[in-house]
């Protein structure tokens, strides 16, 4: 039952956080003259009458509190407003752009956790071995590599040569899983590696450090003295305890992950929420950007609730209350 109370409380605070972010974004964006947008929409040669017409059509002439009320009212109905240019509802636009982003995030997280944890555990159980030294160097290079540099270099040394030699499975742009799983993976493999690389380096280092510390604890010596197999000692006693700080770090990194998503989408031309929002900046398309900010906030909140639940499952000392 405690878990239901916890969930209700976390969801309520989560809603407050999203509301605060949405309000902040709304007032931030409306703290500037509305005529710039209207003038851009109406074109260079527009008369003041046309500009006023545009302002009225967009509802920008109403008092700001009335606009805010419409904004919140729409938000509660899942309506994020309309694109200034295509008049398309923003929620429809975001829904269309969601599949590449979701594909990227899920594949990226899976790859980064598998790589980070595996290499970290192997390094920690064989400290100062050849593997450990090699992985330490790889981690340092990974940490120093900006996401877009990894992406660009992968395109230069993998994508371009392979395509020049007629091997076209690896491709840029986005192709949904409905077009065939193989094609989808061919399009996603480089983005996944790019998104995972930097984070995998962070998690390798964290896992290695935590596991090294844990393996020095007295209870590990006890477990070994009891005659447990090394595998059991490391995985059942060591890794489980070492993982808790790793999981809590995951909650912090979700926000950084979104930054990575925006960059990777831009590098590989995947479309997706991030790329569409960056493009919306050039055209001052505020409703789209506000929509993205709100979706991003909701994503961070939900991810953090999940992380806290996993944390409690891993560490019996943590009580959900």
């Amino acid at each position, binding site marked *: 039952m405690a878990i239901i109370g916890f969930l209700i409380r976390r969801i309520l605070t989560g809603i407050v956080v999203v509301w605060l972010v949405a309000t902040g974004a709304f007032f931030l964006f409306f703290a500037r003259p509305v005529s710039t947008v209207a003038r851009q929409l109406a074109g260079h040669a527009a008369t003041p009458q046309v500009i006023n017409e545009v302002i009225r059509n967009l509802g920008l002439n109403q008092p700001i509190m009335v606009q805010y009320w419409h904004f919140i009212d729409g938000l509660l109905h899942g309506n994020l407003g309309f694109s200034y240019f295509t008049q398309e509802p923003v929620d429809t636009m975001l829904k269309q752009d969601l599949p590449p982003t979701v594909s990227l995030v899920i594949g990226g997280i899976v790859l980064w956790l598998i790589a980070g944890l595996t290499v970290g555990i192997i390094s920690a159980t064989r400290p*100062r071995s050849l593997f450990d030294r090699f992985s330490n160097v790889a981690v340092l290079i990974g940490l*120093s590599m*900006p996401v877009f540099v990894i992406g660009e270099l992968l395109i230069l040394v993998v994508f*371009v040569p392979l395509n020049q030699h007629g091997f076209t499975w690896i491709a840029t742009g986005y192709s949904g899983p409905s077009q065939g799983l193989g094609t989808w993976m061919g399009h996603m493999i480089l983005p996944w590696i790019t998104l995972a690389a*930097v984070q995998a380096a962070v998690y390798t280092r964290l896992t290695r450090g935590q596991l090294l*510390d844990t393996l020095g604890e007295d209870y590990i010596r006890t477990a070994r003295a009891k005659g447990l197999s090394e595998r059991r000692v490391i995985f059942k006693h060591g890794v489980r305890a070492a993982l808790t700080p790793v999981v809590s770090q995951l909650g912090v990194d979700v926000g950084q992950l979104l930054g990575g998503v925006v960059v990777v989408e831009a590098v590989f031309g995947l479309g997706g929420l991030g790329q569409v929002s960056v493009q919306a900046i050039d055209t001052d398309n505020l409703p789209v950007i506000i929509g993205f900010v709100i979706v991003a906030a909701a994503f961070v909140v939900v991810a953090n609730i999940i992380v806290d639940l996993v944390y409690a499952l891993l560490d019996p000392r943590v009580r959900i209350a």
Partner: protein
Amino acid sequence: MSVTGLEFAGQETAAGEAALDADAAKIQGRSQWQLTWRRLRQDKVAMAALAVIAIMILLAIFAPAFVTITHHPPNIAYPNTGEDAAGNPVAPGTNGFWLGTDGTGRDLFIRILYGARISLFVGFVTTAIGAVAGVAVGLMAGYFGGVVDTVLARFTDAVLAFPYVVLALALAVVLGPSLTVIMGVIAFFSWAAIARIVRGQTLSIKEKEYIEAARSLGAGPFRIMFLDILPNLLAPVLVLATLYIPTAVVFEATLSYLGLGIQPPTASWGNIMADAQNFYQTSWWYVVFPAMALLITTLAFNLFGDGIRDAMDPRTERVFAAGRARRRGRRGKRQVLADDSQSGPSHVAPYIPPAGGS
């Protein structure tokens, strides 16, 4: 981190070294900084990284001198000598362009040098702002505790979890992308990690007896915070700041790459690489050289930061000593492992999170 504890541990190992080398008869008193520098100088990787950083800084400072040598100002295009017949960039070494040209026939080498000026300037300035702000917030939260702590610590956590690209996106729309805006964004995210560490250290230091003594002598909270607590925090703050510089450099490059940062024609490593996207098939140097400049810089700062951290951590010597012991075969692997984690009081070296790329 107590100075006395550090010095004691340092002298102990210094004594061990002296006995081993048998070249120093008496033990001198050395300050923490002298000990750190001594250890750092022996770290070949860290010193090489320092040399690379110094070269980068010199190249950035003397970028105009290279313009004088090559006669290629950063924003001037050379359609005749800088582009081939098809209008593509020319290769490194052609027509006096040392690293080739970019998409509009400008000198790539000169533009990378001017990009270094932006990168290093943003890196150092935002880190300095972040370090000052982080120390102030961390000290206040840790020292005053209570409501002040709750509010500041929650705020710190919120900033740490906030997607920086999203904020940069929002501000770029409202204020228009510019150097000032991206420096504001980067500085805004730079203080939180430092504040968190400083807060934790302050919490433990403020319970020490010498703080009690200062208070009973009538010292005010700010005097205690800045004169009694702060000097003991400088070591971890210095390490964190060094490790934050590459992160700030990467931030700037990433934002400029996305078109949210430095605007063309001003050169930045990020916007050079964004332009290079159209020339993958023909001009590898256009992608590779700015990427290498960025990678070498961030790698050097990361290695140097790790070096300072190791040099300041009194446990490091013991880890090395444990390694030596293992090689001599006196102990088994498991015991060495245990020693790695148990030697040295755990409060001496705070956990310093690795500098994450973006």
